[in-house]
């Protein structure tokens, strides 16, 4: 009997490998191989407009990259963007999730409304906000002028001092719902009893939040923060649509794609793309250690 069972288990294990094979092959083909090729290209002088076989040039593309102020500007833009937007989204998401967790009329409707920005394609939200932030006839400037908050219309997307913050604002609008929904789901898993105990202990609402709620939802919150940070570090659509290739907002992805496609410099562009990949890998390692989260607990939906 036991021999029969283990034969069955063995057959199961063999079947499992066959079940996995198609997906693993697909992932290797669509992600593993292209990544390896990108890294290889980064060590050559390959160009899109040249048919001759590319020559190996060692690390010279990386040396050029390190000396390019535009690259460091892109790194700075990306990091500022990621830190600012994830911080705002987390705080705003917490406030909205706590509010939605209260029993009240219209809660279902508000939660449904929260899904609208999440469902809108990023390109579309960039266009809608580009129109609202239009420097001359945009509704935001008109409202600010009418309220007397500014003296003349602001060039939100053209002014180098404002453009990055405009991009952050659009991202916060678009992705706060994702944060809110994740935090709300965590809040709704908390049992009511812990709050009853807190009432007996005489904790006020503020103490209740910091001493009870926050520590309990911390794992879910950390997962959401990590996921959003990694997503923000590879941002492309928002900058490209709102401000084009403008250096004031260019992210690392925008910079790398510009080198690859517009300047047709496959070697150098691949070095920038590999740089972005390394930075994201580093950020993942740092966040996972700092957050003390199991990798397995994270999960994504864009």
């Amino acid at each position, binding site marked *: 009997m036991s021999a029969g069972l283990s034969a069955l288990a063995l057959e199961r294990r063999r079947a499992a490998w066959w079940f996995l094979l198609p997906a693993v092959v697909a992932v290797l083909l669509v*992600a593993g191989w292209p990544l390896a090729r990108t890294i290889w290209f980064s060590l050559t002088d390959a160009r899109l407009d040249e048919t001759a076989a590319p020559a190996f040039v060692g690390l010279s593309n990386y040396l050029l990259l390190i000396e390019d102020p535009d690259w460091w500007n892109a790194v700075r833009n990306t990091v500022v963007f990621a830190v600012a937007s994830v911080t705002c989204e987390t705080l705003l998401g917490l406030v909205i999730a706590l509010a939605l967790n209260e029993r009240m009329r219209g809660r279902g409707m508000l939660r449904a409304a929260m899904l609208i920005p999440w469902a*809108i394609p990023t390109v579309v939200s960039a266009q*809608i906000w580009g129109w609202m932030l239009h420097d001359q006839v945009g509704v935001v400037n008109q409202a600010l002028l009418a309220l007397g908050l500014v003296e003349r219309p602001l060039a939100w997307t053209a002014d180098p001092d404002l453009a990055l913050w405009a991009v952050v604002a659009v991202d916060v609008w678009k992705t706060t719902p994702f944060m809110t929904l*994740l935090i709300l789901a965590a809040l709704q898993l908390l049992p009511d009893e812990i709050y009853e105990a807190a009432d007996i202990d005489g904790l006020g609402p503020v103490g209740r939040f910091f001493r009870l709620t926050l520590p309990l939802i911390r794992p879910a919150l950390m997962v959401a923060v990590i996921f959003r940070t990694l997503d923000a570090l590879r941002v492309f659509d928002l900058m490209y649509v709102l401000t084009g290739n403008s250096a004031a907002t260019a992210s690392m992805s925008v910079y*790398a794609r510009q080198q690859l496609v517009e300047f047709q410099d496959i070697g150098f562009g691949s070095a920038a793309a590999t740089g972005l990949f390394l930075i994201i890998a580093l950020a993942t390692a740092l966040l996972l250690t700092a957050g003390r989260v199991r990798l397995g607990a994270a*999960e994504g939906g864009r």
Partner: protein
Amino acid sequence: MSARRLRRHIGRVLFVLLMLLIAFYTVFPFYWAIVTSLKSGSALFGAEPWPAHPAWGNYVAVFRDRPFGRNILNSVIVATSVVAVSLCLGATAAFALGRVAFRGRGVLLAAILAVSMFPQVAVLSGLFELIRWLGLYNSLGSLVFSYLIFTLPFTVWVLTTFMREMPRELEEAAVMDGATPWVVLTRVFLPLMGPALATTGLLAFIAAWNEFLFALTFTLTDDMRTVPVAIALISGASSFELPWGRIMAASVIVTVPLILLVLVFQRRIVAGLTAGAVKG
């Protein structure tokens, strides 16, 4: 005593105001897109909250002057195909990862999760070469192929969490009757996983529908563009002359079906988004 009641009332009013503010912030931009799409001529540049003479002109123009119908069809074809492929490959892989204990399972799951975090730019040049080699450049096939990089890991991951929750007794009973793993998957589990497959498929569909970078890079001509690229590339002579009315009309057309889908499947989407993230 009455001071305390007053304070409670004020708190209540402030809370309602906060809710209204959040609702306004969330909904207004889309509302404004609808309003703009119904305006024409100089009315476009005014700030009235509802157009005095709502007109469909922008909607007609989007389909008349550009291949927008074709773009929508392209997006539907690409997103549907990539979801179908991902669900087929994802369901079998999830069965192996969720139900069978074997060495290297944890590593494999971690690797799949890592791929879903890949920056798309990092594979751009390698994928571009592969797509040209396969003869898929400037065709919808290039997008169906490349989108697997984010839909497949996502599908495998979510379906694995759902697969784990299937009752063990069901499988044991089938195995006792001599069912092979393939039969267990296709005859026992998949019929029960309808809701899970629908949720996962819907989320992958939305991700594929919204993708921009690959679609911008791997297609060249207007008739191969998908919706996000078409909307991003609508242009005029200058920034001031951008046809904002039409851009907003196109935006509303592609967003309304998504919003309806999301509202109808609200509960499932929230469940799918939070699967794994909260339960761990």
